[in-house]
């Protein structure tokens, strides 16, 4: 499977195409029918060759992993589904009831419902995949449209009525698998299909041909016309299909990122600030680009690359306050003796604010859980909010870095002596 963004685009294309086909349906058009049928023929042919390949490989390798079997099954079943859908939509054009009584929009919905019914039968065979099945049937289509409208204001930009799409749920192991492309000969895994193809060259001359090295053609007809959405395997998550307000994830990439960000440890630590932790490597890389340049810091630990963002944040939450980057402040004091006191001051300020800001952080947590995580552009916020928790809830706030940690411990003794001893005597 390819995890780049392109498949999504193609899916959309397909959807539009299907829509176009639907508009033509009301009138019986032999030309369109013919083209549809040839489409189907082509697809079946492709599937056939694919199964053929699998059979061949089965002969070659005996110790195949379960995963591989599952993947192959998945592929085949996906293609089969799409073929069935096509077939039904083609056949649907001949049904007199559909031709006349409903609007175009209803047509598509009903077609999908028909698809669902077929899918139920399909699913039975499919051990790995569980399909979300819409409860409605063609007879109560208008009601479903009503529900559709109710659902509209939920979610993150995409408002699909439940049941209008197919739901896939990958297992945890699958999501976290480092490799998605495996050599069918030696079993070596690769992240990218292209790498796999390069690898395959070592297995024989037949893999060196231009055809086998070329990027597999993304045949439009290969893609299913049914919308496919993904569910997070973590039960209780809003992205899990069992959830009341289930919000599906758009692509497998989204699934992977969501699962890692939300349900996994943040194992990648920024080497620059030694503070920020990420579970998705790409997030760390993005952070590292900005790390150190995010000079606008809030007392809750959140950093901002722009001053107005910081001030908007501070204005929104009670108890949060802008904080100066500590190194800058230390630098501004020339006198050695005084700078000690300064660091303590800065340290203590941070301490007070972070512990006093917990009420604001509560709000943030609520926001956090509401937030959608699958959008890569918003990948920052969850991390930032986590930083808040980090500070607010622990009794002894973990120090951001070793340097400031030193200053903090220094603070306690130093300020004590300052108030009760030496400095004051000097003053007197």
């Amino acid at each position: 499977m390819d995890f780049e963004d392109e498949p999504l685009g193609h899916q959309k294309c397909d959807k539009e195409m299907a829509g176009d086909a639907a508009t033509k349906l009301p009138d019986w058009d032999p030309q369109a029918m013919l083209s549809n049928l040839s489409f189907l023929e082509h697809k079946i042919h492709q599937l056939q060759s694919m199964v053929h390949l699998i059979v061949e490989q089965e002969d070659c390798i005996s110790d195949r992993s379960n995963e591989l079997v599952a993947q192959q099954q998945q592929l085949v079943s996906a293609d089969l589904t799409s073929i069935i859908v096509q077939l039904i939509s083609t056949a649907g054009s001949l049904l007199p009831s559909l031709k006349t009584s409903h609007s175009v929009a209803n047509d598509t919905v009903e077609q999908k419902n028909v698809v669902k019914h077929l899918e139920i039968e399909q699913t039975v065979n499919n051990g790995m995949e569980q399909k979300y099945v819409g409860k409605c049937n063609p007879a109560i289509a208008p009601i479903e449209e009503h529900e559709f409208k109710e659902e509209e204001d939920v979610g993150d930009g995409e408002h699909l009525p439940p049941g209008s799409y197919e739901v896939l749920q990958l297992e945890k192991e699958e999501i976290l698998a480092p490799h998605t492309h495996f050599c069918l000969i030696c079993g070596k895994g690769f992240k990218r299909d292209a790498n796999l193809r390069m690898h395959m060259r070592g297995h024989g001359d037949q893999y060196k041909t231009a055809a086998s090295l070329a990027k597999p053609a993304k045949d439009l007809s290969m893609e299913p016309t049914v919308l496919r959405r993904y569910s997070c395997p973590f039960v209780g998550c809003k992205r899990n299909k069992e959830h009341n307000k289930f919000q599906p994830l758009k692509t497998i990439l989204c699934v992977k990122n969501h699962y890692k960000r939300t349900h996994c440890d943040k194992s990648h630590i920024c080497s620059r600030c030694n503070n920020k932790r990420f579970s998705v490597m790409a997030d760390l890389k993005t952070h590292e680009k900005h790390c150190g340049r995010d000079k606008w810091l809030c007392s809750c630990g959140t950093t901002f690359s722009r001053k107005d963002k910081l001030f908007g944040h501070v204005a929104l939450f009670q108890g949060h306050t802008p904080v100066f980057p500590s190194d800058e402040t230390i630098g501004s004091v020339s006198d050695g003796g005084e700078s000690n006191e300064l660091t303590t001051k800065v340290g203590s300020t941070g301490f007070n604010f972070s512990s006093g800001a917990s009420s604001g952080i509560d709000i943030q947590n609520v926001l956090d859980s509401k937030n959608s995580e699958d959008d890569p552009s918003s990948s920052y916020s969850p991390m930032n909010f986590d930083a808040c928790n980090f500070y607010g809830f622990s009794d002894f706030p973990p120090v951001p870095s070793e340097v400031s940690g030193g200053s903090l411990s220094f603070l306690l003794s130093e300020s004590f002596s300052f108030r009760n001893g030496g400095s004051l005597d000097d003053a007197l």
Partner: protein
Amino acid sequence: MERFKPFEFLSDEIIFTILDSLSSSPLDLKSFSLVCKSFYSLESKHRKTLKPYSTELLNKILTRYPFVSSLDFSLCPRVTDKTLCLISSSIGLKSINLSRSKFFTHLGVSCLVSNRCLSLTEIDLSNGINLNDSTASVISEAKNLEKLWLSKCVLISDMGIGCIAVGCKKLKLLDLKGCFSLSDLGVGLVAVKCKQLQSLDLSYIPITNKCLPAIFELPYLKSLALVGCCFIDDEGLANIRQGSMSLETLNISNCPEVRHIGLSAVTNGAASLRQLIIAYGSPVTVSLTDCMQRLPMLQSVKLDGCQVTSSALKTIGDWCISLRDLSLSKCVGVLDDGLSLLVARHKELKRIDISCCREITHLSMDSITDSCNSLTSLRMESCSLVSKEAFISIGKKCLFLEELDFTDTEVDDEGLKSISRGSRLSVLRIGICLNITDEGLIHVGMHCPKLVELDLYRSPSITDLGIAAIAGGCPNLEIINLAYSRDITDISLLSLSKCTKINTLEIRGCPSISSTGFSAIAQGCKRLTKLDIKSCFNINDSGMALLAHFSQSLKQINLSYCSVTDVGLLALASISCLQVVTILHVEGLTVNGLIAALVSCRGLRKVKLHTSFKSSLSQPLIEHIESRGCSFQWRDKAFQAAVDARSWKQQLEASTL
């Protein structure tokens, strides 16, 4: 037999009440505390405010006055962190003024706001050009702070003010005048966080329209100053949904882009607005004045320096409310027809300022005197077209006048005679009035016992006779200016020495005055704080010696062109509270004398010297003096001969034409 002690019957509370009424005169309090030990300790307990001259003895002072809650360091140029630490550990401070002090940092301020000083509600850190954001973040720990002055703290940025906004939620007054580093973000945050604000000064901050809506939504805001916020325009003000209901004073001077559209947005619904100041703004047109018509509580309008039209003034006359205070000083386009119609309707006007409205004549003055009979203050400096007769009618019809500024007008003795009938007069400025002679002054002296300030700057016909009449009849005189009145001699000063309340005396350019008269002043007027004896060539060391001996509260003196030598200057240097000295072209002064004086006079804040001395003073010495908080101003003026008043005025007019 036991002695009868009458004061033992008085409870502390009663004595405290007596002391309360004495607190206006520090010398009396001093005398009280010197009576006996119990009075001394009572006075110590009673005192709540201190304004020390130096921080050197602060330790002892704070021990003596344990209940002091307000400290004013505006006379101490040098206040260090140590001092502030000492204060924070000794007394429960409520208010501190550091606006004129330097040499402290955020560390000292952090002592002030920490632990013991939870009671601290007022901090004045104005002119703290070295204070940065760390100071601001330290201030933000003063949770109970209600009043904060930070004007001209140019280094404090949005980050600093953001900390203050979050930390000091109880702020009622915030002065950010001239904090150039601030922007919309910081100011906007202040408006969002400090909901208790009643007074906000944002003058000369480069704020734009963005932060205005939040500011105008502050629920308790009474006073708002946006002077010189040149990025604010009509468009931004029009975005305000409704003008502030609580706003009482609005100052939008020097905002050239604010015109009637913006003003109408601001005044829409501003039911409490009493004072509106739009000085040096866009031209005052009919549509602008129409905006103000809807304000039911409006009492005071200041349009200083604006271009006005007669029709706009007429529309002000058509308002149904009656103004109390109107200022058109330096306005261009104020003509008789507009002004006459205006004042004819606003009969309750108490204060009128038409300084430098040069076009107006007796016609305007007639309508002012006819309609505004309750006038208390009239300022008409440089209204030179107003005839002598008009002043007579002012005196006849306006009997409640307290303040009069006739500087540079045609007022004569008859006018003064008429005016002096209103015995409430306390301020009279008749400088550069060439028609005035002793006769007029004698009338003033006879009928104006409440006179506090008299300005006779460049009055060539005044002699000792007139001054004697003033000195005899005006015992409350505090400020008198006799500069360049060349016929004044020692006799005038002898008579003025009876006015013991005099604190400001200007006798610059009176060549007949000698040390004899000056000594009399020094002995008689012990409250003297400001003295200008420039070009009094005959004042010498003997005068200085007496001055140094008697006038222990002298703060400021100009000695240029006097016959003072090292001895006189050293004597002067013994005055502990002397802060500002100008010494130019003093022939008898040597470098050594100057050095000795500079070193011994520890309270100095500003010294104006001729550039020729700069090379003679060593750099370490200058640095030492500067480290005590004194700043040097070097002047390179050539020696000037004095000019008499008439030719001076002719020169002035020739140069302006």
